[in-house]
């Protein structure tokens, strides 16, 4: 398993795409921090960028890589290695290399320029976001056999989670504005890994505004550590569950 991961990491690190991604993130973070003396404002801008770019690159790159390495997978399957080890090895390989890019591109600049609780939250939630979208990429790649279809599905998933979902939530909120929607809202956010990452950062940046809400459940959710624990746990769920499904499908899949 780890051996497979090692081969994949070595392969990815040599590719130019990942290097480009790292440089892009690095350029964004450095420009934002250099151009503005206000660190908090910089963190806000980086958050906005991260919430869009990180999921997109993670899911598309992981899917593409998975399909490009289909022959390698077939070769591995013919060897006496369990399918579980193959898929997990791939996951570890791909995710650790993309995480590495994120760490170099975002975590290091943030740690240098804005090392605070907000900064740490940004790093952690960005990492978890990367993991959950790679996990989703594995799900899409195991579901379909066609590369174009797989990438299409990955893009659609990204589009859905980053834009359509929130639009639907906003629509839902306006339609049912007269009802108490506190619990529903918390459940709804749990259904989107991007929202979970966003709320983690929100709990640091906008806590003053969030504390303005009257509902007891919101008070509890925002005010105590429950909100943070909940978001972190749900993000882990978003990493594990798609991966488990992918594993289940891959085990029975006719390659």
């Amino acid at each position, binding site marked *: 398993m780890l051996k497979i991961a090692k081969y994949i990491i070595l392969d990815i690190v040599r590719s130019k795409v990942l290097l480009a991604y790292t440089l892009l993130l690095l350029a964004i973070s450095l420009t934002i921090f250099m151009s503005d003396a*206000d660190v*908090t*404002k910089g963190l*806000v801008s980086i*958050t*906005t960028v991260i*919430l*869009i770019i990180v999921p997109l690159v993670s899911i598309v790159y992981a899917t593409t890589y998975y399909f490009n390495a289909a022959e390698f997978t077939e070769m591995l399957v013919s060897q006496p290695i369990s399918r579980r080890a193959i898929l997990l090895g791939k996951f570890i390989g791909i995710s650790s290399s993309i995480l590495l890019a994120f760490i170099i591109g975002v975590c290091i600049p943030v740690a240098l320029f804005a090392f605070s609780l907000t900064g740490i939250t940004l790093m952690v939630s960005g990492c978890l976001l990367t993991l959950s979208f790679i996990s989703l990429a594995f799900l899409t790649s195991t579901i379909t056999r066609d590369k174009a279809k797989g990438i299409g599905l990955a893009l659609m998933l990204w589009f859905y989670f*980053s*834009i359509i979902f*929130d*639009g639907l*939530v*906003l629509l839902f*909120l*306006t339609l049912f*504005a007269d009802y108490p*929607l*506190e619990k529903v*809202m*918390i459940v*709804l*956010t749990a259904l989107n890994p*991007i*929202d979970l990452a*966003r*709320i983690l*950062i*929100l709990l640091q*940046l*906008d*806590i*003053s*505004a*969030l*504390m*303005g*809400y*009257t509902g007891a459940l*919101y*008070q509890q959710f925002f005010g105590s550590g429950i909100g943070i624990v909940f978001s972190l746990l749900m993000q882990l769920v978003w990493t594990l569950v798609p991966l488990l499904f992918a594993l289940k499908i891959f085990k029975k899949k006719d390659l």
Partner: protein
Amino acid sequence: MRSLIVKIGLLFIMPLPAWANTIIVAPGTNVATIKLAVTIARNGDTIRVKKGTYISLNTLIDKELTILGEGRPVLDARFQEEVLTITSGHVKLDGFVIKNSKTGSMRDFAGIRLSNVEFVTISNNTLINNFFGIYLSNCKHIRVVNNHVTGSNNIENSGNGIHLWKCKEILLNGNYVTRHRDGIYFEFAKKCLIENNFSEKNIRYGLHFMFSDDDTYRHNTFKNNGSGVSVMYTRRIAMLDNTFIENWGSSIYGVLLKEITDARIEGNHFIRNTTGIYMENSDRITVTHNDFISNGWAMRVLASCNKDHFTQNNYKGNSFDVTTNGTLKEIYFNDNYWDKYEGYDLNRDGTGDIPYRPISLYAQIIEQNPQSVMLMRSFIVNLIDKVERAIPSITPESVKDNKPKMKPWKR
């Protein structure tokens, strides 16, 4: 002859310190209580109270005395009465620990009560666990300086730390008030100067006043009070260089202004409050040179306000800059720095070339549908805010800063 009359006259006018006695109060001596000392003292005498614990059940000070505590003597009412009542002018009370006044719902028991007096100084005392701390009623020219007032933090049985009722020309300087109902409470207190006080963690308001015209508040800090600061029905106040910090929660405000007119709010810092300033029915208010940093809502200006000017303020890191509940009229924003401003400055004069609209569409949405707070900073919200800024249709057209600054004001 005439000069002799003047000399004799002077003899009567001058409060001759040479004649004044000093009475020493110490435990275990002939004069073991302040009450006894006050009885034997004459106007102008000094009472020195030595270190020790004295039971003081509403000791009445009805003569012009200077009462000095040496080694912080403790006056304890053991929850049976008030501790001290001053009913004479020209009293100075300094250096005591005053504690455990009675609590009650019929009377306002206080640690130090001043009633109908002038020219009294209360300084360097520590008040612990009293129902009301320092209670001034119908007083003039009083100095309350460097006192440390701590309440019981009991929600049902807590009075105000420093309470003024129907007073004039009072100086409050350097006091620290905590764990009371309202830290500093004024009703009908006119022409007072309140400076360098620190009011934190009070159960209700850090500062609360009504009908208290012409007061000046300078260099005070109000931090983490149960409901922030609330000021109402008052004219011509000046709030200068105060700090309002970490007043968190729903309907908790850095400053709540209700029916305040002709006020000056200058050089204050509003940091990490849920709402920095909340204004209702407040007219002709000038808000200048203030810093609004990391608040939930920097300002909430209701439609009932008129002719208010907001100039040369810094708005940084606030979740929302300005919100309102209707159509604002005659509210003017000018020369402010807004960190959310995305305009440009082609002629490089430091002022943005397109106006900034501080009320965002999303703020309006939250106004109607508070639950959508969960979508804050999401892509869709950024998108609709950007679209609205480019082509304003829903946010009020009148509320805009025509000359937004490109760089923050340096203070």
